């Protein structure tokens, strides 16, 4: 009996974790696609949508896997369109509104720096499907990281206006950056059986990356502050509900509707 109980717990934790990864990518992808047609210049407008598309593609692989784990005929679309706010497990960072271009860049940079480190470790996961998705996603993430880090440096080491604005964005968003490294009980369980890395152990490497880029950008790393958390367990900021209302409207209003 004990064995079965452990097995079920692990399965639930794994599924929730895959949903957490998928939800974060979906929400961030949706956010940056809001820039489509509004980018500061055409090339960067296209870059944002391209990155959004990669994130949505990675989301699909993850939702397909989560749907297979859940069984009961669930599909990737059910997971994206028919879950409510409290069921979404995305990082709070990913749902924050776009703000100006600088705010969007900082949000992206902090996330991609984390993704690079996380995916590098997930490639070695004892779970083959997660490892395969990580291997595939990492190649794309490397481009996203480079793009966002270069923009942090251009804006930080740019004009007085761009520097002040991006520093203000960093100071505002920083409180959402700690959640990535605070494991939930599910994540601790998965770490103990070698499926995911110890998240707290990624923090030093992440801080090094971020500090190096901020230094080159002549920007300051904020002082230690209280870190918001809750996204991973379904407790969100006020922004997610509005996003889901827009994103899910069609499937809620016309269930099963297809193109």
């Amino acid at each position, binding site marked *: 009996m004990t064995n079965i109980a452990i097995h079920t717990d692990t399965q639930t934790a794994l599924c929730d974790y895959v949903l957490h990864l998928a939800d974060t990518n979906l929400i961030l992808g949706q956010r940056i696609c809001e820039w489509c047609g509004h980018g500061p210049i055409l*090339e*960067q407008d*296209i*870059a944002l949508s*391209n*990155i959004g*598309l*990669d*994130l*949505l*593609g*990675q989301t*699909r*692989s993850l939702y397909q896997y989560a749907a297979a784990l859940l069984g009961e005929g669930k599909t990737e679309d059910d997971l994206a369109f028919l879950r409510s706010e409290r069921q979404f497990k995305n990082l709070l960072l990913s749902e924050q509104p776009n703000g100006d271009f600088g705010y969007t860049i900082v949000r992206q940079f902090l996330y991609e720096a984390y993704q690079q480190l996380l995916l590098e470790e997930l490639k070695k996961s004892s779970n*083959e499907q997660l*490892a*395969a*998705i990580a*291997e*595939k*996603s990492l*190649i*794309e993430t*490397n*481009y996203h990281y*480079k*793009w966002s*880090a*270069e923009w942090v*440096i251009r804006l930080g080491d740019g004009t007085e206006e761009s520097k002040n604005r991006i520093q203000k964005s960093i100071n505002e968003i920083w409180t959402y950056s700690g959640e990535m490294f605070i494991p939930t009980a599910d994540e601790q369980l998965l770490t103990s059986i070698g499926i995911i890395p110890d998240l707290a152990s990624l923090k030093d490497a992440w801080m090094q990356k971020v500090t190096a*880029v901020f230094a*080159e950008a002549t920007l300051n790393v904020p002082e230690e502050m209280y870190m918001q958390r809750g996204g991973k367990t379904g407790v969100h900021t006020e922004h997610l509900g509005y996003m889901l209302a827009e994103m899910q409207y069609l499937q809620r209003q016309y269930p099963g509707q297809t193109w």
Partner: protein
Amino acid sequence: MTEEQIWALLESVPDPEVPVLSVVDLGVVRGVSTSLRRTKQSDLSDSQEVTITITPTYSGCPAMDMISMGIRMALIEAGIKNVQIVQQLSPAWTTDWMSEAGKQKLKEYGIAPPLSNTIVDELFGEDHKIQCPQCNSMNTELVSQFGSTSCKALYRCLDCKEPFDYFKCHR
């Protein structure tokens, strides 16, 4: 049909975004296998079942559904009704799998073919020089790392002044 014949048939299935390339040139087809099986008790003979393993280029590439459909249609037209298309993520697709013939076709089409390496881990690292597919000049510059599709970057030639797409090295 033998596996060799199926590979040859797949060489006629174009990539929907870059139609000069076949799905085989692109390196998307990772495996072909055939088996015989009787699908219904009433069938008088075994019918051939073909399994094609494909791998996505970029995770979000919208062409993948079209590619699956194109492969299925080509096989059905060749008389094979039982077609299984299996998607495989690992090992991850790389432009190293693009055939030499494919690279040549890309260039003739006006897209600079992928180089075998890239400098993605160095911030502001200039990529290796990309040759202009129009005038062959090496005097070109990157306009944007992200272009008209996931797989391309936008360049411009400083000699003939033409903008052009570069099929990004992906590895």
